[in-house]
């Protein structure tokens, strides 16, 4: 209930803020001089007339650029946003092709145009605010910040804006825009039968989601839940087995009396250094039915026929987790080594005096300390493993498939490798998009739950 209240209050607060903002726009206009009022249409006008040409020109340039983009370019796509295109491809009598509407670009550029419109509104609002402030300062008889000061502040007070401008732009274009695009695709029929430029795709509402969850007929329901379950099981084992065994190896090497500590660590660390597409591809082949491992086991008479490592669903799942130990233990070992040294020696000494043995010390001192310190790290590891594409794909590509699973999914497929296969092999973008959204939901839910349960989510200011 409490949750609901705060969300309700937030929404109410949002509308209050909107109201206040609209009122401010009105009063700024009413109380504004002609420079301010013209700035309502020509952005930067007031700033220019007041001598702040850096601000004025940039505002003007932005307005011109965005308006040009929206009306000169975006509109032709935006007008088709509702249908995603109507005219298809055709062949001319001389054999050449004429492409019609391209649903892909209609959707992409419509989104871009919508973002451009939002950006324009935001800049317009900032422009009004600048005018109001300038007018206010002048009325008080103060000086406006000079152009030089404006520019200099970009390296000082406003250095954060300078630093973040490019990274934010990059993230907007190459992360935010594509994600919005793919979320939209989840509500269309963009697949191999509706592929631009030759064919159009269009909105289909929630059909793809229904299809993913329905268990009968063509639905992916049972397959989806099988893959989801394995994804969670895999993540669990890949995270915690690696964690405990990695810690064990670290403790083993850290023991007093063990020599060549650095050598042992260096040997283990090889798996981090060698690119995975080399090492994992090779290791995968080693366990093939006719691979090295089986051949030698047969040669030595230990088994009479090859162990179906990669073709039996259960074996392949177990083997993947085991090989992942080979990849993951060194990483945890490195981290644990550093942290173990931070545990005060006298804790162990006093425990020893109390007569505790090694195991008791581990469970009462080492483990609680490690879990406390690395709690959030375990969460990121878990989420990383949910999306651990390389290990799965390089080893099995999700195989073995089965008549019990649809959509080309196999028993070792994670949601993310299934998504990849949907995209690359089947160009079934609509279903891939839905699966992607599901991955997001799973990740978000787990993160939220864990963050609320974990005690050691730290106040970041506390460290400084």
């Amino acid at each position, binding site marked *: 209930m409490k949750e609901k209240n705060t969300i309700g209050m937030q929404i109410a607060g949002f509308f209050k803020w909107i109201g206040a903002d609209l009122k401010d726009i009105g009063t700024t206009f009413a109380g504004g001089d002609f420079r301010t009022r013209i700035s309502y249409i020509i952005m930067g006008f007031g700033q220019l007339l007041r001598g702040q040409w850096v601000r004025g020109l940039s505002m003007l340039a*932005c307005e011109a650029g965005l308006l040009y*983009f929206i009306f000169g370019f975006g509109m032709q796509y935006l007008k088709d946003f509702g249908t995603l295109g109507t005219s298809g491809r055709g062949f001319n009598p001389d*054999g050449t*092709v004429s492409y019609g509407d391209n649903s892909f670009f209609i959707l992409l550029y419509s989104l871009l145009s919508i973002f451009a419109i939002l950006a324009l509104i935001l800049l317009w609002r900032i422009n009004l605010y600048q005018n109001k402030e300038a007018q206010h300062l002048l009325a008080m008889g103060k000086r406006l910040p000079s152009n030089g000061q404006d520019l200099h502040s970009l390296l000082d007070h406003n250095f954060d804006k300078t630093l973040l401008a490019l990274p934010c732009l990059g993230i907007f274009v190459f992360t935010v825009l594509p994600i919005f695009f793919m979320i939209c695709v989840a509500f269309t029929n963009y697949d*191999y039968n509706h592929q631009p430029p030759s064919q159009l795709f269009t909105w289909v509402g929630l059909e793809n989601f229904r299809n993913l969850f329905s268990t009968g007929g063509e639905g992916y329901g049972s397959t989806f839940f099988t893959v989801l379950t394995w994804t969670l099981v895999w993540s669990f084992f890949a995270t915690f087995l690696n964690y405990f065994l990695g810690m064990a190896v670290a403790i083993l090497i850290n023991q007093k009396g063990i020599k060549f500590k650095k050598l042992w660590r260096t040997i283990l660390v090889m798996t981090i250094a060698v690119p995975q597409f080399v090492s994992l591809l090779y290791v995968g082949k080693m366990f093939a039915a006719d691979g090295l491992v089986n051949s030698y086991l047969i040669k030595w008479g230990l088994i009479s026929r090859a162990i179906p490592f990669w073709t039996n669903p259960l074996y392949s799942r177990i083997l993947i987790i085991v090989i992942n130990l080979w990849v993951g233990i060194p990483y945890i070992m490195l981290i644990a080594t550093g942290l173990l040294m931070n545990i005060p020696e006298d804790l162990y000494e006093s425990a020893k005096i109390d007569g505790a043995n090694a195991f008791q010390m581990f469970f009462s001192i080492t483990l609680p300390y490690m879990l406390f310190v690395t709690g959030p790290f375990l969460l990121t590891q878990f989420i990383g493993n949910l999306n651990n594409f390389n290990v799965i794909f390089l080893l099995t590509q999700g195989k073995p498939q089965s008549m019990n699973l649809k959509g080309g999914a196999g028993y070792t497929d994670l949601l993310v490798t299934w998504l990849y296969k949907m995209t690359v092999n*089947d160009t079934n973008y609509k279903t891939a998009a839905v699966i992607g959204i599901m991955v997001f939901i799973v990740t978000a839910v787990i993160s939220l739950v864990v963050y609320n349960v974990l005690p050691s989510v730290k106040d970041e200011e506390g460290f400084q």
Partner: protein
Amino acid sequence: MKKRIVSIMMTGILAAALLAGCGGSKPAEQPAEQPAGETAEQPAETEAVDYGSGEIKIWVAENVVDFTKSQCDAFFAANPDMAGYTVTVEPVGEGDAAGNVITDVEGGADIYGFAQDQLARLVSAGALTPVTGDEQTLISGWNDEASVNAATVGGTLYAYPLTSDNGYFLYYDKSVVTDPTSLDAIVADCEAAGKGFYMEINSGWYQTAFFFATGAELTYETDDAGNFTKANVSYASEQGVAALKAMINLHKSPAFNNGSSVSNAANCAAIVDGTWDSGAAKDLFGENYACAKLPSFTVDGKDYQMSGFGGFKLMGVKPQTDAGKLQVCKALAQYLSSEEVQVARYEAAGWGPSNKNAQQNEKVLADEALTALGEQLQFTIPQGQYPGDYWALATSLGDSVISGDYDNADDAALMAALQDFQTTCEGYAQ
């Protein structure tokens, strides 16, 4: 507080610049006028036609890249009026080529080689220019009927046949396999020698060797646009069950390995594979190299000769917006699939021709692997069009067999699995 605004504006300018950058490439996307009903005049056939200039991108398999380059040079030397075009040949295997072209038709190669199983997908993705009119008659006359059918969707020819050798047969090690005509004997020999028999039974392509042998059926009908309209499937039948049983029996042998790539077969005495691997197979088996048609197998006391697909490699031309370039591409594709070039390609890379005259070439007739394939082709059906989903489904069926799902299944359970398979197959046709 106020000064922050300036930098937000800077961000805005950058954004605007980027947006404008995207805008630059716009004109190409201008919706074209609908050509329907329009009757543009054909360019008059005059002495000097201006074909324009530009770049033609070709994707072929790695082992014929150099060959294709030299043939293109020969083509432009013979047709100087088309020499305004430069050709780049990239090694992109048949599977990748089709996949890439389907992902982005406009970015794909202008001319590309592919195996026919991709044809329907390519047509429905709009990645092929139809071969019509006189050209259709010409190409149909050149090549054997089955290869022309394989390049046809609905009633329209969409590609230029390159080879008729996309079938499979048996490569084996003479010193191990004594009787290559019986699957049971081959498997027994392999088991005795501790060697492997390789067949990729989790591929929809190799699997049909069993199903078609017992008389089960699986074909599709398509309309002109590459949509599947009807499925003729009889896997859920006694014949289907017999074939599935044969696969299960094979999988139970310790000698069985799933695979069809000579170089990935680590312990190989016999392998079901195609002509493209003949060089590798010779290297692998050395002087014990031998090949033969596929063996027969026995289920419940009945013998069946293995069947399968006889497939074809095709060359396609991507739809073009420029009439001059289209003509050059078509002429070049025609040339690359002509009799002389097919013979030359056989000599360079061992690809068996689809051209009727080229097939009668002495050297082609004398080829060991092609002879084995030729014998096998009598028992196969020419491969038609299959939906992409079929191949994934067949892999699932094969994987189920290999993982032992059906090891102890009775006939009724096998029938149920095949019924499921058949229903799904029928579902792919609208």
